[in-house]
């Protein structure tokens, strides 16, 4: 069985400051890992994915995530938050099935 835990339900940052959204996973086998973003009243959009290649993965809109097997983590980061980054973010682990985290709501203050 596999599972994913997003450690923060809500993160608030100021515009221009770094973003860190935390995700831990458990999986019996080498998983694929994804981060998705959801803007209000929209479907989910892929930010980035890890599928056993480079451990540091770059995504769209300046986001990146690092796969750390020893820590079973796949945290999402961005050096400088923009107002348009305010959204819900989901970490997903995929192996025999696909499991979503509960989501982290990112608020960006001006």
């Amino acid at each position, binding site marked *: 069985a596999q599972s994913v835990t997003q450690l923060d339900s809500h993160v608030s940052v100021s515009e221009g400051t770094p973003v860190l959204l935390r995700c831990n996973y458990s999986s019996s086998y080498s998983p694929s890992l994804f981060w*998705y973003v959801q803007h209000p009243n929209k*479907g989910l959009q892929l930010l980035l994915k890890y599928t056993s290649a480079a451990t540091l993965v770059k995504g769209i809109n300046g986001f990146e995530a690092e796969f750390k097997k020893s820590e079973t983590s796949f945290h999402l980061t961005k050096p400088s938050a923009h107002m348009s980054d305010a959204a819900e973010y*989901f970490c997903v682990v995929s192996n025999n099935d*696909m499991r979503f*985290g509960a989501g982290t709501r990112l608020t960006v203050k001006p």
Partner: protein
Amino acid sequence: DAGITQSPRYKITETGRQVTLMCHQTWSHSYMFWYRQDLGHGLRLIYYSAAADITDKGEVPDGYVVSRSKTENFPLTLESATRSQTSVYFCASTPDFHNSPLHFGNGTRLTVT
């Protein structure tokens, strides 16, 4: 336009009624999924399909029925709607279950009164 389309966007129905949510994709992706999104639960898988005429239960299948007679369509039916099925429903597709990302529709907001 290529993509994945859900209809309707909004639906209000009464307890006990049957309601069908539609999902159509134009990529000929093999895999299709139905999720429900509820506050505090993230997305939970209801049903999925690996190909036409192949469907399987997900995490929360009770009270739902699916069919996949054609690759591009994957309707979700609530046979007798209950208030607990009030939710936002998302359809998604992918060509490769493990390595490829999911492509999502914009969702259907269902209210059961």
